[in-house]
């Protein structure tokens, strides 16, 4: 683990001076500079809105068992119960991810509960046995592995009853070995031979993942048919604890890992269920970030007084045609550069886009991430004016600042509104990660749910 993760406790450089560059062309318009000083780690909080459909979001260094410090990673607390029971555990530091779908918690965190496994019947036609559904859920790099179970999920004053969740295998003994296909799906072993599977709070930097993105469940047609030809297998049916006996499974959409929000029923009897989307509101941050940022997660969009779409908000609809190359994306433009594969994602920890004019040679693998951050030289932050647009004529202009990641990570901050990077992509994608969420309310609609404008879209 890089030493750059060590936290000195005090942060150099406090005074920032903003110069606005008048008449700059090409969409980039100003620079920010800062000079010396010492400031302690700060906590910045936003405590609105409140209500039975809201809960706290915290951006901090991560779960206690992860000692290196997460960067720009939002967390919520989730209560998981055996179905229709008062047998519950409350799990802190569950990673809040608008870019995935479904609740996944470390199996060890719910070991005190008797959660019923999600079982699949034998399928004579497919010649698959009866057994437990087990999922391999791969990200671009890295992935999680473990069985599905049914659980009640409580957040704020909302309850989802007996929904399928994934239990991330982290207990070592007595669990199914990860199939080779799942390791390959997650990107294969590291150069040092380590598995790419997140199987602990330390590797995950969280006690679980709450995926509240634009879908109601996490796979769809391929998993429903069980025909994974050419792809990595996502769902298995396992008749026993021997991985070799697991087979690729056909699993109906309503048995796949579920976005809990679509199943939420408000405990307070609100006339409309808060099940059609979410709003994440995070505070604006000081230029060098904050040690801890606290904000709000709101369930429902337009379902009650505290979650109406703000009058000045811009709605951006993502491409909803699965056969389109830009499926689930909108377009970002900076100057003359277009990024047609753009998306907003609380679960990406920075602005990720390729801009060859921003210096990238950071001095270390800062933040525990293996390179790729932007480090504008010295004390000059880079500003860019981006235009975000969709195929329906909706546009928004957004100014972003990219500061030197080495400087940001040199202190004790965990939350940054100006962290950016590029892991070398040149192919026109722009991930509007957590940096974008600070100082905003970001709406994420859920496709197929009742909304005044049908999803999928984001608004802010």
């Amino acid at each position, binding site marked *: 683990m890089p030493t750059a993760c060590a936290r000195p406790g005090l942060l150099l450089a406090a005074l920032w001076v903003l110069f606005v560059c008048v008449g700059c062309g090409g969409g980039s318009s100003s620079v920010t500079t800062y000079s010396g000083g010492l400031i302690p780690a700060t906590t910045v909080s936003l405590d609105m809105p409140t209500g039975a459909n809201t809960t706290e979001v915290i951006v901090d260094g991560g779960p206690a068992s992860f000692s290196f410090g997460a960067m720009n990673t939002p967390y919520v607390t989730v209560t998981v119960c055996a179905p229709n029971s008062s047998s519950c555990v409350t799990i802190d530091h569950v990673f809040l991810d608008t870019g995935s779908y479904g609740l996944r918690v470390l199996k060890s965190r719910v070991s005190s509960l008797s959660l019923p496994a999600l079982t699949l019947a034998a399928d004579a036609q497919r010649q698959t046995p009866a057994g437990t559904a087990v999922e391999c859920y791969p990200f671009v*790099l890295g*992935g999680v592995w473990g069985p599905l179970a049914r659980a009640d999920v409580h957040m704020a004053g909302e309850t989802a009853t007996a929904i399928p969740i994934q239990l991330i295998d982290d207990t070592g003994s007595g669990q199914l070995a990860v199939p080779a296909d799942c390791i390959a799906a997650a*990107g294969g*072993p590291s150069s040092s031979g380590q598995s790419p599977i997140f199987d602990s709070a330390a590797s995950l930097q969280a006690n679980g993942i709450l995926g509240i993105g634009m879908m109601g469940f996490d796979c769809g047609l391929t998993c429903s048919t069980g025909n994974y030809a*050419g792809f990595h297998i996502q769902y298995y049916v396992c008749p026993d604890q021997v991985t070799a006996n697991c087979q690729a499974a056909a699993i109906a959409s309503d048995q796949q890992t579920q976005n809990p929000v679509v199943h939420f029923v408000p405990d307070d009897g609100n006339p409309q269920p808060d099940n059609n989307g979410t709003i994440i509101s995070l505070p604006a941050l000081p230029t060098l970030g904050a040690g801890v940022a606290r904000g709000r997660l709101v369930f429902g969009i337009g379902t009650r007084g505290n979650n109406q779409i703000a009058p000045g908000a811009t709605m951006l609809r993502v491409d909803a045609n699965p056969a389109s190359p830009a499926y689930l994306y909108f377009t970002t433009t900076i100057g003359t550069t277009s990024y047609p594969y753009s998306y907003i994602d609380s679960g990406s920890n920075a602005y990720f886009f390729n801009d060859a004019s921003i210096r990238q040679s950071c001095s270390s693998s800062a933040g525990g991430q*293996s*390179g790729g951050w932007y480090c504008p030289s010295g004390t000059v932050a880079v500003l860019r004016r981006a235009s975000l647009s969709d195929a329906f004529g909706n546009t928004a202009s957004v100014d972003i600042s990219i500061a030197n990641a080495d400087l940001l990570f040199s202190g004790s901050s965990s939350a940054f509104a100006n962290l950016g990077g590029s892991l070398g992509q040149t192919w026109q994608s722009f991930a509007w990660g957590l940096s974008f969420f600070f100082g905003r309310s970001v709406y994420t609609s859920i496709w197929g749910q009742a909304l005044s404008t049908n999803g999928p879209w984001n608004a802010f």
Partner: protein
Amino acid sequence: MRMLRPCVLASCVALFGATEAQAVLGAHADTVQADQVRFQGVRASRVLPQMTAHEISLPDGSTVKEYVNASGLVFAVAWRTRLKPDLANLLGSTVSVAAAGDPRGAGVAGSKAPRLVRQANLVVHQGGRMNAFAGLAYVPNLVPEGFDADSLR
């Protein structure tokens, strides 16, 4: 980011000495048919000035494109898919491992960022969001002269 190892003899053979069962980078165009069968998709082919583009479309909207140069060799593969494709089959067994960076230390929040590995003999982009994975891999010395392979989708 972990870099590819140099192309030592064994991996060069694995990369360019394609088996008959699957199309991989550097293999003959005939193997595109094998991929179409494997994906159980519909293929559309377009003849372009310097290459032929084969697009395999799947029922869920996923697409895999394979680009063949004038010598009849697959020089690039691009994918836009709901699930992650099996890169060992699509690109060759050495590529799926080599294309990966190292996620440890990044946590799940860092695991979703797009990645690029660029070497003299191989370029692999991987990225996209959940249910809309995307990627591009090509062999630079098989790319038609003057063509910008990074522009492929």
